[in-house]
């Protein structure tokens, strides 16, 4: 793999991720609007929001660490995109397996946590303590699912896992081979996205959007970009683990949008769980399902 080829891939993958992410955010807001019997935002609304936020005149910052927090949040996800194989581009998926991807996905939230810490705002600190507790909650089923898939595929390299699933069409998809793991993965995915039932750390009414309380202008713009990446990453991880990755771009995008649409449809029907209920729920059902799934996979 010569250096030029890699360089192109490393710049192209985040761009593709951003554009697809924009449309995923639009889909999310449209679904939310339709559920509330509203018209919903126009087509390019997420792009307008990000442009406006970057174009604001005064950008308020509380210190160098506040800026680095946003840079790590956006940069962490850009790095995570390059580890996600998409049709035609594998990036550095073979050099960094599933566990590394799970860890690289933690880097943005921890960088943001440092940035919010310096804002010295009690709402931000409470939001971060809830976000980390939620991360503790949803990472365990996510890791169990990773263990199951890696054990079944014999390798934790995403390219091999996708190749294994594309051997003979739908029958070899992860969702067909290991339905329990797939469902546990979907549950964990919903918690990772941090959408409504698990949105305790952005609770606007209680702690003024938690970590985002002191983020204005390009700081909030960075977080909107991160949201696009977050939706895209969640969708692509699930498709490559359970829905056989992407033979070509069309089926790949349809699968990713479908995967992201499922939690969002559920999200806007539920109020918010308390922190300990989030932990109790996510540690009970998906963990049990995942372990039973692993039991099936292991023997």
């Amino acid at each position, binding site marked *: 793999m010569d250096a030029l080829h890699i360089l192109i891939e490393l710049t192209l993958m985040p761009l593709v991720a951003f554009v697809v992410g924009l449309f995923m955010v639009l889909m999310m807001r449209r679904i939310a609007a339709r559920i509330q019997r509203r018209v919903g935002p126009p087509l390019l609304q997420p792009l307008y929001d990000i442009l406006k936020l970057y174009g604001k005149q005064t950008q308020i910052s509380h210190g160098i*660490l506040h800026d680095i927090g946003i840079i790590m949040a956006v940069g962490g996800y850009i790095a995570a995109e390059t580890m996600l194989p998409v049709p035609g581009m594998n990036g550095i998926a073979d*050099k960094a397996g599933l566990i590394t991807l799970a860890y690289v996905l*933690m880097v943005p939230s921890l960088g943001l946590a440092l940035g919010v810490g310096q804002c*010295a705002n009690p709402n931000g600190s409470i939001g971060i303590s809830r976000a980390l507790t939620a991360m503790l909650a949803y990472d365990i089923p996510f890791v169990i699912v990773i263990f*199951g898939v890696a054990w079944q595929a014999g390798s934790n390299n995403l390219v091999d896992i996708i190749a294994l699933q594309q051997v003979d069409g739908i029958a070899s998809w992860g969702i067909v081979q290991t339905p329990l793991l797939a469902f546990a993965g979907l549950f964990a995915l919903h918690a990772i996205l941090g959408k409504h039932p698990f949105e305790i750390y952005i609770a606007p009414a209680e702690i003024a959007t938690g970590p985002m309380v002191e983020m204005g202008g390009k700081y909030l713009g960075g977080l909107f970009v991160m949201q696009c990446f977050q939706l895209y990453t969640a969708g692509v991880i699930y498709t490559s683990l359970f829905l056989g990755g992407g033979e070509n771009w069309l089926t790949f995008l349809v699968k990713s949008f479908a995967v992201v649409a499922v939690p969002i449809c559920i999200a806007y029907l539920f109020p918010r769980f308390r922190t*300990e209920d989030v932990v109790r729920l996510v540690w009970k059902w998906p963990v049990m399902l995942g372990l039973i799934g692993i039991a099936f996979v292991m023997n």
Partner: protein
Amino acid sequence: MTPLDYLLLLSLLTVVIALVAGHRSMGGVWLTFTYAAQLGGLMLMAGLTNQPDVITSSLSFTILGQSLTWRYDALSWYFALITISAGLLSTMYTAGDWGEKFRADGGNLWLLHVAIALNVLSMLILLGSGDLLTLFIGWELVSWASFLLMILAGGPSIQAAIRYITYAMGGAMAILAGLALIYGHTDSFTYPAAANILHSLSTAHLWAPLLLLTLGFGVKMALLPLHLWQAAAYAHTPGPGAAFLGAISSRMGLYALIVVLIQLVGLVRVIELPVLFSFISARDVLAWVAAFTIIFPTFTALRQNDARMLLAWHGIGQGGYMLLGLVMGDALGSAGGLMHVFNHATYQAALFFSVAAVVYRTGTADLNRLGGLVARMPLSFLAMLVGIIGLAGLPPMNGFVSKWLVYRSLMLEGEPLLFVAAVVGTLGTILSVYKLIHNMFLGQLRVEHENIREAPWSMTAPMLILSVVVFVTGLMPGLVLQWIAGIQATVGLPVIDYSLGGLDSAQGSLDMLWVVGVLFAGFGIGAVLFYSGGRTHRVHQLDNYAGGHFLSADIRYHYSDNFYPGLMRLIGPLYRYSFAWLESAVQSGLGLLSLSTQGFYRRVAPANYALVTAVLVLLWVML
């Protein structure tokens, strides 16, 4: 005079210099040079790591027909490297302003220098043990030297140190009993003799010595039931002393366990050694003890309100990873466990130094009375940031590589529950290290801390050196993996095929050069995207959104106490201090026993009681 003799002599010289010049201010600088000389002496023996041979020391003598020899192989070289560098950095830390303040506050600087030098010497002797007897002698020297280091600060540390020494003495007696049992079979203490006897011993006979030795060494490693002494003992030792102890002292137990379990008994035997009337093998027992050692101390650390106690509890937790990796036995797991010894030494020392710097400036390590120090102590913040990223095991730092290896081996061996236990430990670490750095360095800067300055250079230099080491070995783990490959060859474990960036194997490889490179490329793009926006305007700390409330400096609005209320509401009832109850139960049992035996010899008239016993003994001898 082999290179090993030079090393031991240099170490002895260091102790002498500490005794002579320890109290003088220049004494610390001299000691740093002698530690550097020791490091140089060790580098002379660097050849040990690439081919499995042994350097024996000319220091050997025989007592009662038993020959005591000292020799170094790749394993002891690796541990000696960590020991001497830990000693070097903590002495460099003590030599500067910290030492002056410690002496000014009434601390015994001379005794601290002597204690650290003695610790290094005794550890080098333990690491060089050629046979079981020298192993036991070295073990005793190390436990007494660390007792000296723990007790010199006075006050609460005396009570913690006495608790440590009772545990250590109990452990030492267990080891002595184990050795006696082995001597019963082999009537010679040399390793080869012990090795072939232990190979052929039946399971019933093998269980007793193995259990006793593991318990004995487990005390120093703070394995789960025996871990209660370590946190208080390490936390109350003065700053650099705690860094030295935290970095290497409890890993001596791991070294001895490797010597016994892997070199003598052989891991294959341990793996299929069945526990009586149960389906699990000895390895499962050790693996689950290690897994619980990861989880329980980490979640105890989550509730600590003193920074040093939090770090000490994490020291115990990370020890669990090392044992878990080793017990897996395959190339990846043992490499992960061994590398974690090095990684943990680097970032634990950096964290303790950073906390000592904050205590040096603000006078307290209580997390509820600090906050916002990033604006006044940026270098200590940087050292702590790199340290906690390493401790939590996140990508750019070396902690991640060793944890990745342990996880990968758990995956390959097919141990889902152990894998989940390890991940729960890691997540608990992430939560508690964020609480540490948030309560100390982030949030609202207090009025009384507004004009403190960064710690002096003599304290920030060691911290930054360690941070650079943590990052470089994270970027290029191959540097450490080459030593570990040498160890695996000498100790008889499957050797790991490493590359400079990490590991490349068919079932999924890790190349840290690419991962860290891509991560920093992502940060670069993020920075370009960020600085393309408008110009930032820094605002005052009180210019904050507080629901329309006018913030003022006298209100303390920094959120630090009970930092994870949601989680604590769920797992709070699980903290039932059952191990503390177990320990007090054992204590009261022993107390009862000693009271009952007192009845025998504390008679009103001891004289005639002695007469009766003498007559009975005479009769017994006669018949």
